[in-house]
């Protein structure tokens, strides 16, 4: 059975596997990382069974290796994502995503009266709590919490 499951998303020779993405946020992860704009091979699967979370998604990107600051952008939509760096079909490195100290774009400010929700302004937050996510808006200074997290349409 195990080998069957793995076959659902084909193996890659060189590149990155991003595992443990919440299924409902798969396309957000793709957009945030700009994977809709690259030309190398990408395969992904969604609604896969997971022990950790109900339904997970997985992305395999050939020939792409992420810098920490790039991959950490997905930390709010996929806080438990795990990266496997593949070289010659072997996993050579595993890492988790971490929430960065500042977040530019991606998240909407929860405050309807914030300038970022009324003018063409890119959002910008300072992360004041990483455990129970709390983001202070650089503009209106209000705090957006985990429950209030909404993502920008892309």
């Amino acid at each position, binding site marked *: 059975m195990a080998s069957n499951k793995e076959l659902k998303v084909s193996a890659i020779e060189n590149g990155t596997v991003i595992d443990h993405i919440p299924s409902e946020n798969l396309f957000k992860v793709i957009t945030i990382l700009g994977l809709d704009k690259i030309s190398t091979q990408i395969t992904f699967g969604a609604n896969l069974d997971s022990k950790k979370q109900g339904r997970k998604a997985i992305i395999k990107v050939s020939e792409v290796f992420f810098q920490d600051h790039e991959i950490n952008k997905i930390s709010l939509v996929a806080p438990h994502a795990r990266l496997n760096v593949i070289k010659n079909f072997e996993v050579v490195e595993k890492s988790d995503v971490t929430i960065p100290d500042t977040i530019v774009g991606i998240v909407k*400010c929860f*405050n309807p*009266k*914030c*300038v*970022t929700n*009324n*003018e*063409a*302004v890119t959002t910008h937050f300072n992360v004041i709590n990483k455990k129970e996510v709390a983001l202070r*808006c*650089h*503009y*209106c*200074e*209000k*705090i957006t919490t985990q429950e209030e997290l909404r993502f920008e349409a892309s």
Partner: protein
Amino acid sequence: MPEMKNRSLVSINDFSKEEILHILDLAEEFEVNPNQKLLEGKVVGSLFFEPSTRTRLSFETAINRLGGRVVGFSDSASSSATKGESLKDTIQMVSRYADLIVMRHPLEGSARYASEQSLVPVINAGDGANQHPTQTMLDLYSIRQTQGKLDDLNIFMVGDLKYGRTVHSLLMALSNFNPTFHFVSPEELRMPREYKLFLEEHGIPYYEHGELSEIIDEADIIYMTRVQKERFSDPMEYERVKNAYVLKRNMLKGTKDNMRVLHPLPRVNEIHTDVDSSPKAYYFDQAKNGVYARMALIAAVMGLM
């Protein structure tokens, strides 16, 4: 002294304790000698995207006393914003005309954004419910002028402590000076949790009270604010509590000699007019102090002092 020249003034939280004290010292100099033509030949863009007559007059008085000239508009109806021009474009344009921008805007965070788009310093004259740093500066100046110091004071804040932007900013600024706070408000308009957490984290004592009573005898400063009917989810609740937050002359009887009553104005009925003639009423002088505080802030960012 940290460099304030060419810096925008967006939020009171951007000021260090030393910078606050420096501005207050400058304001004191302007109070002694209010006509100094330091802004001669300079043009200030005064952009009021929403009307605020008192704040605008105070700024324009400050600019005129400094010998500068003002261009701008006093509400969005007379600005190009009504034609759909973005804030960014307005700021890009005006910052090519003027040497300094004073801006009032209904959107929260608009001042920070404007400061990032502007080629010249921006002074925030109020961005929605967010910040109004020149008000905070004049409040601090008024407290120091009446008490001779900012440290170790008993500060009573009364009225709408939930939505009151002025009390939030004042609380943050005073936290540098070892205060003790007393919050007097109706249940529904209590000081928000985030500010109380801030005080707890910084070891600053505070007490909450439901009513204005003889507890004010301990006060050095009573900072009154308006309790507005529309802030209550239940209008009956407003009717029930509204008189509990009105300051009257006879309540001042047991208060300390140095105590002064402050109010950001406009007042409605939360300070009875019989308080006005008391030597402890300071709110009209407080408004006058706004001119000196604004002169000081303008001089600092223009690098004139």
